[in-house]
């Protein structure tokens, strides 16, 4: 895997996602990855979110936090 692909994977691992017409959109970096890169993002995201949840006092990953922030209007 070259450095450019590694950077794309790393960006897609973030829970940040753009908003498109009021809905959650795909990450631009994810769209630039091939199928293997996308599968790697899935596998690594599972591990990363488990780690984030384990570190969080309320057991929430960054995915959970971003959703709660959204429904609380922050």
């Amino acid at each position, binding site marked *: 895997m070259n450095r450019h692909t590694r950077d794309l994977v790393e960006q897609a691992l973030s829970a940040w*996602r753009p908003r498109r017409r009021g809905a959650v959109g795909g990450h631009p970096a994810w769209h630039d990855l091939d199928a293997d890169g996308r599968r790697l993002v899935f596998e690594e995201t599972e591990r990363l979110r488990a780690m984030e949840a384990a570190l969080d006092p309320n057991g929430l990953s960054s995915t959970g936090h971003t959703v709660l922030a959204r429904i609380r209007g922050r």
Partner: protein
Amino acid sequence: MCSRSGSRVPRVGVTSCWSCSLSPVDELQAIVAGDTAAFGRWVARAEPRLRASLRSFAAQVDTEAVVQETLLRVWNVAPRFEPDGGPDGLTRLAVRIARNLAVSELRRARVEPVEVDRLEREAEALAEPGTPPDPLLRELIAACVERLPGKPRVAILQRIHARGNASDASLAEAAGMKLNTFLQNVRRARIGLERCLEAGGAVWGDA
């Protein structure tokens, strides 16, 4: 999609308590009443199973976006949810919503109907209950984070503290790093953490 958020006024008597232990029925009632802490507790339990149910779509759908959109939709439809008496009713609903969203994305991307059917069948087989996290994991992860070298630790903590609400470009700027340097440091931190956790005997997810 979060139409329930802006106009939502907390009702009198609705508690917002992270450490409260509620029965499934009481928890659902709290969510319906607009208790975001109760919803957060449900999200913490449901997210791993929800994400795992989307594994077969991983090469063709951004599953992180689908998971987030699904959780927002569950929040919006919860007031109309009618339990069927089975366990984890709201989570099963979430898995169905997620699968439908993923299939819609496949159709939008003009994936062959035969392939859509195959992925959907695979997803059906994956929607099993998840396992609870190892209670000792938090302590081990915190110790591993502390052992990371300076810049990787700064970068991964920026990511974690941002909670998905800021792009990497803005996090890199806040950390005083170029974007590619920031991403390299996050990667170094992730790899360092995984090695440290493996050395500590941590078991991940479905591993």
